[in-house]
Each structure stands twice: as C-alpha cells, then as structure tokens.
C-alpha cells in the first residue's frame, strides 16, 4: 500500500498532499493573494511558495500521521505552469527525494486534476472539462492518452475572468472568480457579448477586450452595474464551455461529464452543465473546492497511479517545463 507525497505550485496556490491507496491523508494548501486590480507575477509567487513550502510539508506529514520512512514516492508538478514557482517546488521535491532516498515522479498538472476528479467522483470514463486560470481543455481518454478534443485558442476562461476582475478592482481573496460568481448572482441585466466558439475550440481574448471596453462605457453612463457585467460574462463564457463539452460528448458517445480545475467550483457553471447533461441523459460529476482548486493531493494521486504502473523520473530528466501538453503522457495505468 504505497503512500505518495505530492507537491503542487504551478500558479499562485501551493499545496502538499499525501495519498495512500485512494485515500487522501493530508492536503494543506496556501494561496498567494495580490491586492485588487493586480495579478500575480512569477517572481513574487515563487518567493511566496519558497517561504511556506517547508511548513506545508511538515503539516502534511503531521496531518497524515506519517514520517519520511512511510513515504514510498515523491511526486511533484513537472508542468505546465509558471517557471519560477514550478522550480521552487521542484527543488524541494528533488531534495527530499534524495535525502530520504525515495523515487521521484514528475507529474503533468492537467493529469493531476483528471486523476483526482476520477478518484473523488468515481466517474468511470467521463468527458472532462478542465477549466482553470491557466488551462481550458475538453479531454477524453482513448488508447492510453488523454486526448484534447477542444481547447482555448488563446487565453484560459479563468484568465479571462481574473483579468476582468482586475478591471473592476474586485478582490482576489479568496479568488477573483469566486467574487465574480457572488456578484453575478445579483446581476439582473444581460449585456450582449461576443460568443466565440470555433468548432471544437473556444476563444476568450476578444471577449475580454470587448468587456473591458464596455465596462468603461456602460459603468460611467450607468447603463448597467458591475453585477450585470459579471452575470453577462459568466453566462456567455459558460455557455461556450457547455457547447464544446457537448460537442465532444456527442463525438464520443459519452454518458459522463466531469468538471475539474478551479473554475469548476463555480456553481453556475455546474448548473448549466447539469442542464445539458440531463438533456442528453448523461451524468455530471464535479468535486468541491478542496480538489477543484490546485492542490498537492491531486499530484500525489496521479503520482500514485504512475508509481504503481512503474513510471519513474530520473533526476537528470526531472526539469520543469512551462509547456506540457496533456496528451504527451502515456497513460499506462488505464486500459
């Protein structure tokens, strides 16, 4: 019964998790929050991670009730993500792997989300909608790869939401997306925004430019409120995501959908996806914010699967990489 330690820090969340045989034994996490109107920069984010990671590691071991001897494998996020934060986390993973003489495993961040989603929800073979601040992909498993059926051709949907939050100076605590969601609930008027689905793919940068422009104009004339804009942006981008997910499900004949990634916490998105699934007679799966949002246990879980399947990452090949496609990994642990 191997116990795997997982390190995650590719964006502004840093987490260390412990998983043993499908049980999450610990999953502490910290978020680097910047002032309203600003985003997080790589150097500052890395500095934040370096300051807290060792405390988090200790917390994870204590919460799991384990010592270094009980750990069988050290997993960490190899990519994709922001360079300096990824390095800060990877050097700690490599150091403890060597100190404790344990095997090392570099994990793809996107696959971490998928494997944790599968574990927590029990979905057997879902079409996955992976939506976060850094990624927007529709993924389906086929012949030992997580294949990307559709994705954003420019920025992630979460990036669009986060950058819009900056324009309105919405607080980043606990996350800009959460605060947009709360404001959207009070929105009454639907402002028409561009709807940019491109076949199997989506585009968000044009919508962002448009709404940044509209915000200036309409807020000064009082034509609409910030809440109306939050509501309109969510309705538009989420409808686009539902459309491309449905398209992929139709192609695959899939009866299950799974939402993973930070934007997956959004209840409105879950509602809209649920409506689509019901219309198709399919089942929707989603996780709560402990596992939707970047966390260490998801890396540990993917690491656990990889470890059992015999994957190992030699030190010389353990360098981080900012670009790491989901379909680059051979998923040998599934049929």
């Amino acid at each position: 019964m191997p116990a795997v330690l997982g390190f995650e820090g590719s964006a502004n969340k840093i987490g260390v998790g412990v998983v043993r045989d499908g049980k999450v034994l610990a999953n502490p996490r910290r978020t680097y929050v910047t002032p309203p109107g600003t985003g997080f920069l790589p150097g500052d984010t890395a500095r934040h991670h370096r300051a807290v990671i060792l405390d988090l590691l200790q917390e994870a071991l204590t919460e799991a009730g384990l010592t270094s001897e009980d750990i069988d494998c050290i997993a960490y996020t190899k990519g994709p993500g922001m360079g300096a934060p990824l390095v800060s986390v990877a050097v700690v993973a490599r150091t403890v792997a060597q100190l404790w003489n344990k095997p090392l495993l570099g994990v793809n961040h996107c696959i971490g989300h998928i494997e944790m989603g599968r574990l927590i929800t029990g979905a057997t073979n879902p079409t996955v909608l992976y939506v976060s601040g850094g990624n927007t992909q529709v993924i389906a498993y086929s012949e030992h790869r997580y294949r990307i059926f559709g994705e954003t051709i420019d920025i992630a949907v979460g990036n669009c939401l986060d950058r819009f939050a900056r324009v309105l100076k919405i607080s980043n605590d606990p996350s800009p997306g959460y605060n947009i969601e709360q404001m959207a609930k009070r929105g009454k008027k639907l402002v028409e925004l561009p709807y940019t689905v491109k076949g199997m793919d989506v585009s968000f940068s044009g919508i962002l430019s448009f709404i940044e422009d509209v915000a200036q104009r309409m807020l000064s004339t009082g034509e609409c409120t910030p809440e109306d804009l939050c509501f309109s942006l969510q309705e538009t981008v989420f409808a686009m995501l539902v459309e491309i997910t449905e398209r992929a499900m139709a192609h695959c004949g899939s009866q299950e959908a799974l939402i993973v990634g930070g934007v997956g916490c959004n209840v409105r998105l879950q509602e809209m996806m649920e409506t689509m699934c019901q219309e198709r007679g399919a089942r929707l799966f989603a996780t709560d914010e402990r596992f939707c949002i970047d966390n260490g246990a998801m890396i540990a879980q993917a690491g656990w699967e990889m470890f059992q399947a015999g994957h190992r990452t030699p030190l010389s090949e353990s360098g981080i990489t900012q670009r790491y496609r989901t379909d680059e990994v051979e998923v040998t642990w599934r049929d």
Partner: protein
Amino acid sequence: MQEAGGDAGGGSRAGGSGSRGRRGVGGGRSGPRSAGTTSAADHGAPGVGPAQHSLRPGGDPWSPAQRPGSRPCVFTLNVPFPSALEAEIARGSLAPDAEPHRGAVGKELTASGSVLAVCWRAEDCRLLRISIVNFLDQLSLVMRTMQRFGPPVAR
C-alpha cells in the same frame, strides 16, 4: 570567484558578497578568465570575470571580442556542504532546470568533494546577475530543506 561561506549545511552568504566582486567593465580585452578565476578561488580572492563590452563614442555596443555567441561574463561560486553526499544532493536538486535565457546564459554545476561548484558564462552582465540572484534563492531553499528534513539517510 565568489566563496560562499556558511555553517555546515547552513545558509549561504554568497548573496551578500556579490557586489564586492571586481568588475572589468570598459575596455578590458582579456579573454574570459575562467582559468584565472579557478586559481583565484584557491587564494580566496573575490573576483568577477570582466565584462567585455565597451561603449564607443557613437554608441556602438559591439567590441571585436563580443561577437554573438561569445560569453565573456564569467562568474564562479563555491558552496561548502557538510559532506560529499549533501553537495551531490544539492547538485541533483539544482541542476535539472534549464536556464530561461539558454542562448545567452549557461551554468554548470559540479559536486567535487563536499563543495558544490557553479560556473556561469553569460553574454551580458544583466542576465548573469538575474540568473545568479535566482539561483541563490533556490540554493537557499535547498539548504533550508536539508537542514529541516535531513540529514540524508544511509545508502
């Protein structure tokens, strides 16, 4: 050559001593002094390899010695560890990640005995400085990790 002092396994003071290095800016046409800096290290002398660029009147930044592809800025750092194993562990943790500006800055890490030796070669001082500062931050983290979760288990 920068000597990083410090307690056994303790924090490196290399960051603080960076500014005291000798700088050869302006006109020096001697070649990269890597051989010279190695021996300087033996005498514990501080020194930064001289930068080759000279700004001539008219603003032409290229001196004949600074062709694209040549890396005249050299910096070396020696970090002592309590044991050869720990130096090797540090090397294993810090070596795998590629430099962001691979074309302009490169570094080599070697564990010789209980000393981690790092040698940078860069096309310009600014990128060199950035790389060094980032490296020192990560090195500090590795050392703190070793202090808190070490010593290494017996092999």
